[in-house]
């Protein structure tokens, strides 16, 4: 295997220009939302809204302003270019029934469209909500870390387009060293909240062994809608024998119901593939007209371990926390 390659996305250098989004779509020939006729989301300058099968880079805009202070003292606008994390232990890869998802010689995770049958298991299994169905070919798609460009010795399109080096590409080992140095530098210059999310021992992503696309953040992961404890699907499953019995029971009931429904409804449900309960995307609260005041951050967290108050990420509420 070649060297493990990855991204470091340094959010303190991001200017939210979305060049990464456009460069990605251009290189990978992904369709524009609505053919260009998108609608205004009302969520800051973010009209891309999410990562999915057609959006492989997504710039998040998090506004933190105290609207009860007309001077907006301490106001921040956090900008962050999100992407597939290329997890060291990738849930999508674990659940893919067709072997469409592979780990490449660059230690990245790639979905092979010609093998994918569109079953959506990987969508459910991804703790970061990265994968989606691309309407063009009806297969699951996500960032490939520009596998084709890597094979040709090129930098991925997003990193190439980034004007401020917020997105850095390179051998993972180098990036991690660079990231640690950058955190030290930020701490020294007074930005004590800076930390790396997605490296070994970060206290967040250890259960999946870290991320090949990791981030430098200045607020808790939840602020960026990143899970504080991403886990593998295998951690959430019940023991095999119980699952087997349970499945049989469920299948029987579902089968009976289906028989009944087929008689009653003329809708063609044939394309629906029976599948386990999908952990649904956490409901994004409707954005209020006035941005709520930012919760106060700890005055001076210890620079070495900037561990902000963590909330557990429990999309289904039944995760094994062991």
């Amino acid at each position, binding site marked *: 295997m070649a060297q493990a390659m990855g991204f470091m996305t340094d959010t*303190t*250098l*991001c*200017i*939210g*220009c*979305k*060049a990464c*989004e*456009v460069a990605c*779509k*251009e290189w990978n020939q992904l*369709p*524009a*939302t*609505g*053919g*260009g*006729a*998108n*609608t*205004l989301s*009302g969520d*800051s*300058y973010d*009209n*891309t809204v999410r990562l999915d099968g057609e959006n492989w880079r997504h710039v998040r805009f998090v*506004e933190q*302003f*105290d*609207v009860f202070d*007309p*001077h*907006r003292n301490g*106001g*921040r*606008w*956090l*900008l962050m270019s999100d992407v597939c994390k290329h997890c060291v232990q990738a849930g999508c890869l674990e659940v893919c029934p067709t072997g469409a998802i592979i780990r490449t010689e660059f230690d990245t995770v790639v979905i092979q469209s010609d093998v994918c049958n569109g079953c959506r298991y990987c969508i459910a299994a991804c703790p970061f909500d990265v994968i989606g169905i691309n309407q063009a070919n009806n297969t699951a798609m996500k960032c490939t870390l520009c596998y084709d460009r890597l094979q040709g010795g090129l930098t991925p399109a997003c990193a190439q387009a980034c*004007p*401020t*080096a917020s997105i850095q590409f390179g051998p993972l080992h180098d990036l991690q060293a660079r990231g640690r140095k950058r955190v030290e*530098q930020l701490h020294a*210059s007074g930005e004590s909240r800076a930390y790396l999310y997605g490296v070994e021992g970060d206290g967040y992503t250890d259960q999946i062994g870290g991320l090949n696309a990791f981030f430098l953040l200045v607020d808790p992961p939840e602020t960026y809608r990143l899970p504080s404890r991403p886990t593998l699907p295998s951690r959430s499953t019940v023991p095999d024998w119980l699952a087997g019995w349970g499945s049989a029971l469920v299948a029987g009931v579902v089968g009976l119901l289906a028989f009944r429904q087929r008689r009653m409804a003329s809708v063609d449900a044939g394309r629906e593939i029976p599948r386990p309960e999908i952990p649904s995307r956490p409901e994004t609260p409707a*954005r*209020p*007209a*006035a*941005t709520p005041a930012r919760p106060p951050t700890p005055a001076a967290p210890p620079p070495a371990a900037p561990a902000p108050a963590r909330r557990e990420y429990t999309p289904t509420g039944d995760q094994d926390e062991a």
Partner: protein
Amino acid sequence: MFPGSMADSDVITIMGSNMAENHPVAFRWVMQAKERGATLIHVDPRFTRTSAVADLHVAIRAGSDIAFLGGLIRWLIENNRYFHEYVINYTNAATLIDEGFQDTEDLDGVFSGLMEYTGDPINGFIGTYQNQSWQYAATQMGDQGRTANTAQSGEQGVQSGQPGTQAAQVPPGPPFDPLVQSLKKPPPLTDPTLQHPRCVFQIVRRHFARYSPEMVERVTGCPQAQFLKVAETLAANSGPDKTGSIAYAVAWTQHTYGVQMIGAAALLQLLLGNMGRPGAGIMALRGHSTIQGSTDIPTLYHSIHGYMAHPSTLKSHETLTDFIKAETLPTGYWANLPKFMVSYMKSMYGDAATPANDFGYGWHPRIDGDYSHMPMMIRMADGGVKGMLCIGQNPATSLNGRLQRKALRTVPWLVVKDVFETETASFWYAAPEVTSGEVRTEDIQTEVFLFPSAMLAEMEGTYTNTQRLLQFHDKAADPPGDCRSDTWFTHQLALRLKRLYADSTLPRDQGFKALTWDFDYDPGHYPTNTRIQGEPDIMKINLEINGYLTGTRTPVDGFGNLKDDGSTTCASWIYCGMLRPDGVYRPASRTPDPEDNPGSHLGWGFAWPANRRIIYNRASARPDGTPWSDKKKWVWWDGSRWTGYDVPDFTATKAPNAPANRDGIGLDAHSGTDAFIMKPDGKAWLFAPTGYVDGPLPTHYEPAESPVQNPLYPAQQVNPVLKYWPRSDNVLAVQGDPRYPIVVTTYRLTETYLSGAMNRWVPWLAALQPEPFVEMSPELAQEKGINNLDWVTVSSPRGSIRVKALVTGRMRPFKIEDRWVHHIGLPWAWGYSGLVTGDVTNDLTALVADPNVTIHEGKAFMCNLEKA
């Protein structure tokens, strides 16, 4: 300065610009400086993507920039924090000003010399200044004109363009040196102790005495503590081993006193010693890829190539000798103007230009008034324009859009050359007046021709970017269908026009017949890898611009070798030297510096003038020629000549202690410490005797539309000489009009490009910002009962538009004079054509402008906003 040099700055102040958002590529240097520990300050009414990465965001009310900068200037002087050694040696601080000069402090907000404007109303001035009293004492240093032509409206030249009265009768040139010699005057009086009450330093001190921190807070809404933090940061980061830069863009220019805002920044930077040094200076960010080039080889009406004044009927410009007398400064580098002008005439008329016929000067068109965009469209709306070529512009969504579209409806023919069908091309069936039934298509007589244009990668040529850097780019592919490059279009148009005039014997047509146009490829040399026929030979155009020896057609090796006797041609003297005599075309060179080099990259492209990256870089050394500090060394004297990391901007072998030659002309008249070689006195001007039409020092006035009475000078609300065209379709709200209580500023977004004519047709780009919106504070939204994403109507005396509300804490109200003033923001990137459409923001703006450069006031005007 150039953007790469910003990486060397210790403090960067971005003001009048949203640099991260609109100049993201140049912004990489700012981020590099930040990574090296520089402090980034963003002064802006809004919290933008630039503010998001700044160390300090300072919110000020739109249009109050001079009050803020003036406060900094006062603070530096009163606290003795200016860079004394720099100021005393390299600026005109010690120079005495005429006894007749009266400041705004003496005259309640105006300078001496204010007169009623009696010229053509189309020029728009509401008043005018006679600037005789602004001159240096005992010498009329400035009255020869030609000092800051780019800041000089062509229609305003009378005072600054009078031939020197002392000029003796001399034989007409060439050579023109005796004529230039005759224009000389005694050097100005100075007081190096800076104590004389009429010395520039004391005048500046008195002028800004009002700009106290309290006044800054009253005018701008910025708390004093925050203002003082900025002042302290700037002062702490300047001096021999520190430098700071200031970046601005159109948020400074688009005001009725925009040029003065930039002047205030220049004054501030000079006090801090931040000119001609690495990481120092003023970064004028330009909004298009080659807008710098379009002023060098100008599309400006009032200037010819290389920033020489356009011959004018309003100045003493009857003959070439008159022109040279009126426009040449006998001392400083502009003393070479006769060489540049004669070479330009030779480029225009070739062999037909001879000493006997004044090098064809009589054929050259002369302007007689303001022919910039706004007066042109007003003339057109009144039926005074017969046809229009519209290339790379979209007036239908431009300032006071309804008036612009009314003008388009009256012009008999209109050619639009663009890559998409812009609003200017589709106005006759898609404009809001037409879709609403107010105007019927069948009543519009305009004949519209839409010429499809090639795009960037489909043509070859150069860009001149914001750092005056020419970079050549190749063509990647032929354009599709009938699309053609701009050079093809211009070349073919010229060839056809030449044919139409070929047989004319009318005297007025002889100039056009004599005009050289020799850009066809030599037989057998036309490129074979294209299906397009009829392109001109780009290298022939380059040779024309660079200039050549008329005998051998060898490229002239730099503008120092241009002659005033007709033996050289040169279309634009500042570009001379880009083509070397050995045929090397420097804009195509691509040799970067090694990794740990200072980073001037002299082998990358060609920067005018003379491939110099930082101009006035003599000032990067002390008066004795040694670097100010090791950290900030750039150009220095090595004992026998000037050397360094850049091309020295000084006579190469003139020693630092060389005295000025009192009898000399040009640079001979400068001493070894006169670093500002384009200035007649070799000094940077804190006080500008000529160049500005609206005063020798910056003064805070309110925008033409403002919510408050001018807190600084209550007797003088607005710039007393601003340009305004009063018409029923161009009404201004009076100060404090309760119908229009909200301040609005317009801008573009990273995702959009200008009027959106290019990005709204590209799906990937259109989807990023698909709908027009108004940014407003939660406070205003609550007051008006508006929720996020509600439709709202924004109205001004010129029109109204319907957009969606984007309620955000990034917007905030300002406390001005004990009351809260609401601010809203409107991107102006939408129109009625394209994949995504929306109302035209510029339907709200007015035709009211800066008097120096006729730029409209789009950054601060008044409106109302209601839920739709």
